Structures are given as structure tokens and as C-alpha cells.
């Protein structure tokens, strides 16, 4: 009989313990499937953009050496810093940018006519075609005449982008390379929107297309790829549609 009495007491105190741990105690909901988003290049899921590394250059045609901007490095720093801030906000912290500026202006092997194109309204693709191979062979290749070991810091897992401030006309962006005229970055005429113009070209390197009609140039979007490239960097944005294309 004693054991039944003990059993009753165990049940009673068991019930109290059950009450303590169960009745009125909140049960937390937890989801089984958690969505993991990864940023990638538009149209290429295999190319992650969680880390972007920019190698920035100031490129001057041989015959324009006298036009070298006195504070080009400071100017480039300022514009790239603005780009980093903008990118951090727009990509919601899912992608980061590190940049390094080549410490010396690069004097081209050719005159400006060899790099420039007469049509600058829609970028300067001709300049890209000539300047990029020259930078690659002279600066990035280890046997190049301007190769510097202290500049070769590209992390292996980073998406590598070349940003070129060009002492000439026009701007353009494509696979891994963005080029912008120094005039857009330094002249007072473009002061309010210079950083947005740089960002516009930079986002081409991530695969984002222009959001305006060609050749009319009428914006089809208000974001950085359209009308927003003409708004101050603090007031422009990447549209939700473009962000979705980047995996966000």
C-alpha cells in the first residue's frame, strides 16, 4: 500500500512540475525551411558577388600627359568610397566591395585618337577595346613593364572588376570593366551626379543593362540604370526588379 501512496505523491508532484513547464509557457515557432539568398551576377548564377574586388586605374593617352589631374587619386578615392556606400545599401549588406587604386597614372602607349571614339553618347566601347588589353599586358601581367607585386592582391574568391578613370571622353561598362571619363568625375558640371554615373557603369560589370531607349535615351526606369544615373548618389537606387535579377 505504501508504494501506491508513494506513486500518488509522485503523480501529484509530477503534475506540479508539468504545470510549471507546460501550462502558460509559450512555445516558440520555428520554421523548418529557411530561405538562403546568394547574390550573383545577373544571368549567371554560378558567379557569386558576395565579394567584389575593384582594381582602379587612371589611364592617360600618351599625348594627354599634360592634362593629368593633380588630385586624381583623391578624386578616385572619393568616388569609389561613394560607390561602396551605395553598393552596401542597395545590396543590403549581402555583397561587399574592396578596392585598390594603382598608385601611378598609367600613360598609354597610344595617342587619344587611338582610344577615343567620335560617338560618346552611348559610352566609349572603342576605348575599352584598346585600353583593357593594354592594362592587362602592362600592369596585371607579371612580365608587364608596369607590373607591381604590391598591387596584386585580388582575393581568389572575389569577383574582379577593373574601374578605369580615363583622361578622355565617354564612359562605358561591360564584362568586368567599367570606364568613365575623368571629366565626368571632376568637372563642376557633373558634380551632383558624377558618382551616380560611375555607379551606373560599375553595375554594367555585374550584368545590369541600361534602362533607357536607344538611341532616344528615354529612361524606362527611374533607377541607377535609367533616369537615376542623373540623380545624386544619395538619392538614387537600384530597382527591385534589378535586385531580384541579382538574387535578392
Amino acid at each position, binding site marked *: *500500500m*505504501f508504494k*501506491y*501512496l508513494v506513486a*500518488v*505523491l509522485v503523480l*501529484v*508532484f509530477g*503534475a*506540479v512540475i508539468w*504545470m*510549471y513547464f507546460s*501550462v*502558460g509557457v*509559450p*512555445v*516558440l*515557432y*520555428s*520554421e523548418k525551411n*529557411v*530561405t538562403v*539568398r546568394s547574390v550573383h551576377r545577373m544571368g549567371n548564377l554560378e558567379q557569386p558577388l558576395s565579394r567584389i574586388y575593384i582594381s582602379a586605374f587612371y589611364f592617360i593617352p600618351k599625348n594627354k600627359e599634360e592634362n593629368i589631374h593633380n588630385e586624381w587619386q583623391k578624386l578616385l578615392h572619393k568616388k569609389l568610397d561613394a560607390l561602396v*556606400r*551605395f553598393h*552596401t*545599401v*542597395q545590396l*543590403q*549588406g549581402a555583397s561587399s566591395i574592396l578596392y585598390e587604386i594603382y598608385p601611378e597614372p598609367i600613360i598609354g602607349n597610344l595617342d587619344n585618337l587611338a582610344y577615343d571614339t567620335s560617338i560618346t553618347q552611348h559610352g566609349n566601347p572603342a576605348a575599352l577595346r584598346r585600353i583593357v588589353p593594354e592594362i592587362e599586358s602592362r600592369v596585371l601581367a607579371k612580365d608587364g613593364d608596369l607590373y607591381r607585386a604590391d598591387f596584386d592582391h585580388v582575393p581568389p574568391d572575389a569577383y574582379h572588376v577593373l574601374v578605369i578613370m580615363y583622361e578622355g571622353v565617354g564612359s562605358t561598362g561591360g564584362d568586368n570593366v567599367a570606364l568613365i571619363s575623368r571629366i565626368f568625375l571632376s568637372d563642376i558640371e557633373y*558634380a*551632383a551626379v558624377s558618382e551616380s554615373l560611375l555607379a551606373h557603369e560599375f553595375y554594367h560589370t555585374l550584368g545590369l543593362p541600361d534602362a533607357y*531607349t536607344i538611341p*532616344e*535615351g*528615354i*529612361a*524606362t*526606369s*527611374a*533607377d541607377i540604370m535609367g*533616369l537615376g544615373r*542623373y*540623380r*545624386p*548618389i*544619395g*538619392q*538614387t*537606387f537600384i*530597382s*527591385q526588379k534589378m535586385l531580384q535579377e541579382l538574387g*535578392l
Partner: protein
Amino acid sequence: MEKFLQKIHGSPLRTRFLLYFIVLTTVPVLILGAASLFLIDTSHRRDVSALELQLIGQKIEETEKFFERTLGLLELVVGYDQKSEIDITQQNFFLENLLAQNAAFEEVSFISVLSATSTYGVETAKKNRLPDVPELFNVSLLPKFTETKEGRRYVGEVYYTIEGPSVTMSAPVVNRNGVVVDVLTAEVSLREVQEFIKSGVIGERGGIILADNNGRLIAERESGIAEGVRVDDVVSIRRALTGKSVDALQPEDRYQSIFYKEPVVAAGKRMESTGWAFVVEWPLSDADAVMNTIRNQVLVTTLASIIAVLLLAPVIASKLTRPINMLKKRAEEIEQGHFEKEVVVTTNDELEELGHAFNRMSKGLKRLEELKGEFVYIAAHELRAPVTAIKGFISLLLEDRAKNGITLEAVEYLDRIDRANEGLVHLVNDLLEVARSDAGKIEISVHPVDISVATDEVVKTLIVLAKKKEITIEYRPVTSYVLADEGKLKEIMTNLISNAIKYTLGSGTIVISQEMVKDMFVTHVRDSGIGISKVAQKKLFEKFYRVRAKGTEDVTGTGLGLFIVKQLVEKMGGKIWFVSEEGKGSTFSFSLPVHT
């Protein structure tokens, strides 16, 4: 279960009462405690839900007012009937005023709607808070123009800049005939919305979270998570965005918050005009603080009640069963023939009445016992003379049977009558002994007696009887003096040894041994007989009790022998006891004071 109930049914009253008391008191306390906790928790949850939904309703109302106020400033009606644009100078003047009127406007502009002109869809005037004069663009393909030129108000998606979240709003400018003559558009900062979202507080730490229709964070007050980050992974935000009920009452509404980094209870609602999700998250540590205090109080009270019950139960059980136990003990004493004591029950209820009735019954039994004793004594006394006379005459007849001409057949009958009469004499003597004992009239004259002589004489008397049954009696006399009545001592020895002979079926051995134990002299009579069952052992010294066992049907006796032996031993200052095992024999022992 049946076994359990049977076990309970057969257990002592006090234990049963204890069990019933504990079960019947603690179960309601537990049920009451659990029900209280459940009801308090349910009520608390409803209160939390109501408070959270109230805050959400308030913030949605404030947001709707913000939109109405802001869009209202853009809705312009010009005071003419023709379809022509406002003069550029007036446009610029009006835009300056707009920027001055509402701090939320970052940039405002007029867009031409005159399709016949080259300025269709082109900004005709624009003002920005920045010092630079903004450039005018063709925006004819943007929804802020295409939607509004049709006469509809437009509110775009929220976009996130370095300076914060903003939204594009536009409204048609109409003439007095309601014809759209211009589009007035503005880039509107949502700082004001952010401020009143951040000012929304519930409890000590709870706050509101605002996400746009794409699930991107517009504002929240706690974590510092960047604006524009997608937060539609948060279950309450996702559910609110899809229009589901998020009322802080569903299982999904309590979860680990990414904003507070702790468990929260959430409610949410979608603002229909924008599709934005308003969600209130309230840390459980704050929301349930009062509830936890009440919960602990209920639990402590429940536990204290149970402990009090457990402490009181044995006391109350003892108190209630004590009179019954007293009556039981008294009944056992009466069973032993002790009628003198009275049972005292002072419960002032039926049990006390039962105690009084019991005492009256005890007195009645005592009187009956006395009457019985008197009757037995008188009867035995009156029977003694006739049976003695019968015995004498039978002896005379048998002694002179030849002279009296008695045939052999008559001699056999007389012998049977003599044996029957002998039993009757024995019974009458025992009855007289018992009657004297009950009346306290046994006369004992104690003096030093050599117990070995007395024992030897008895053995010699009974050896004939033993030999008839092929029973050996072993005894080695050693002179020892005890204080005893010689006659009574022989009676004791005779009784014990004759019992040993009677209950040894067939041949066997009876061993009589004696020893000194402290200042007492102990005599043991050990037989190899049938032994005594456990049940019989309890009643062996009671009056008229006889052992009934297989093979003892022919054993004669009155059932008074051991009762008388016990009385005699105790009257002489000794004790009697026995050790017996069924089938293996018995050893009866008694002690008497040693003469020094």
C-alpha cells in the same frame, strides 16, 4: 487497476483515508491551478493581441494620413477651362512653395502632357533641395507619368537610397473641366513615416516594424538592421504581406526575433492601399513579465496547498482513526477476557456515542462472564460429589466382582463407565480450577521444591502411557530447588508431558531438559509430534481451545489444560512459552524462580 482497487480495499483504514484525502484534495487543487493558469494565460494573450493590433491600427492610420496629406499637396486644379499647361514661371513658383510646405518632398517637378508638342512627357520644371539646378528629362516611359496622365494618382514602390527610403508620388493637374493639363510629381522621403514608426512603443520594449510590399525593411526601432534589407523571412511579416491573420494568438506568432534577438510575440496587418506590412514585435520577457509573476504566484500557491494537504493528511487521518483504533484495541482486550477498562472517545459525534455503547457492552459482557463463572463453579461443585460417588461405587463393584456375581460382560461395561466417569471427573476438576482462577481463588502455597523429584515422579507416572504408544521419554534429573507449589508444579508437568504424548502420533521421543537462565529455572518439554499451526499458536492458551489437526480426532481433552497451566505458572512468578513448527514437533518451556 482491479488489483490496485483490491489492494486499497484491503489496506488499513488510516492508510486508505490518507490516500483518499490526498487524492481528493490535491487533484482539485491541481485542476484548479492548471485551469487558473490556462485562463490567465488565455486572457493575457488576448490582451497582448488587442494591444498590438491597436498599435498597428494607429500606425496604419497615421501612414494613411501621411499619404493623403502628401498626395493632397500634389493634387492641383487650375482656374481655367482650356487645355493648356501652367505657365513655366508659375510652375517654378508653385514647386518652390511645395518644397517649403512639406519637408518630405526631396524633388518636385511638372511633366508636360500635351501630346501635340515635343515636350510630351518631358519635365518642364523641377526643383530639388540640393543647390544644383536639376536637369530636365523625358520621363514619358516612366509609370509616374503614364499612370498619372490618365487622371490617376500614382504611388510607386519604395526605393532605398543612402539617405533613406523614399517613394515616388504623382498626381494629375486638372483644369476646371477635369481635363489633365500637367502631371505633378514628387520624390517623397519616408523619414516622417520612419519617425512615427520608431515612436510606436508597446510595453517597455515592444515596437513596430514596417516592411514594404516587397518585404524590405522601411523602419524599426530596435536592432539597427539597415533599411531596405529583405525581412520577409520573418514569419509574421511574410504572413502579413500575404494578408493572413497575424493576431498574436496563432502558434506562428511566437518566435525568435531577428530584431530583438530573443523570443517575441507578434501581430501584424497589411495596409491595403500600399501592400505594406505593419508588424508589432513584443519581447516575451517584457510582454509576459506580469503574466510570469502571476503564474509563479499561482504555482507557489498550488504547491503550498499541496504541501499543506500532505502535512495535514496524516494528522487528520490519525485523529479520525484514533477512536476506531481505540475501540479495536479495547475489543481485543475484551476478547482476552479483560472487561475492566473503559474506552474514552471525546469526538463529540457518532464515534463518541459508539464508545459509550462499547463501554456499556463491555460492562454487560463482564457481568455475563461473572454469571457464567458462578454458574460453572456451582455446576462443577455440585457435579463433583456425584461423579466422585460414582467413581467410588464402580471401584467397589469391580473390587468384589466375584462376590457380587458380576459377569465378564458387566465388568467390561463397568470399565467403560469408569473411564467415562474419569473423564467427567477430570472435566469437573478443570472447570473448578478455571472457575477459581477467574474468581482469583486459586490457592498457591509456594516453598522450595526439588523440581527434579517432582518431574521424575510425573515421568514415572506417565511412562506407562508413553510406552503404549512406543514413545520414549528422556529425562536426567539434576537436583534443583525452585519456589513453587509442589502439587501445582506436578499438575503443570503432567499437563505438558501428557500433551506431548497425546500429540505425538505413533512412536517418538519426548525430551525433558532443565537449565538455569539468570535467576530463573527453565524446564523444556520437547516432543517430536505433529506441531502446531500458526493459526492455532495464537489461541493456544485460550480457554476451551483445542488444536484440530489430521490424526488428532481420537485425542481427548477439555481444552482447559494449557489455560490452567499458564495461570498456575504465572501465579508462581514464572512464564510459559513455546516454539513449534507444523510437522516437526513442539517445545513447551516454563520458568520458575530459583530458590537461593
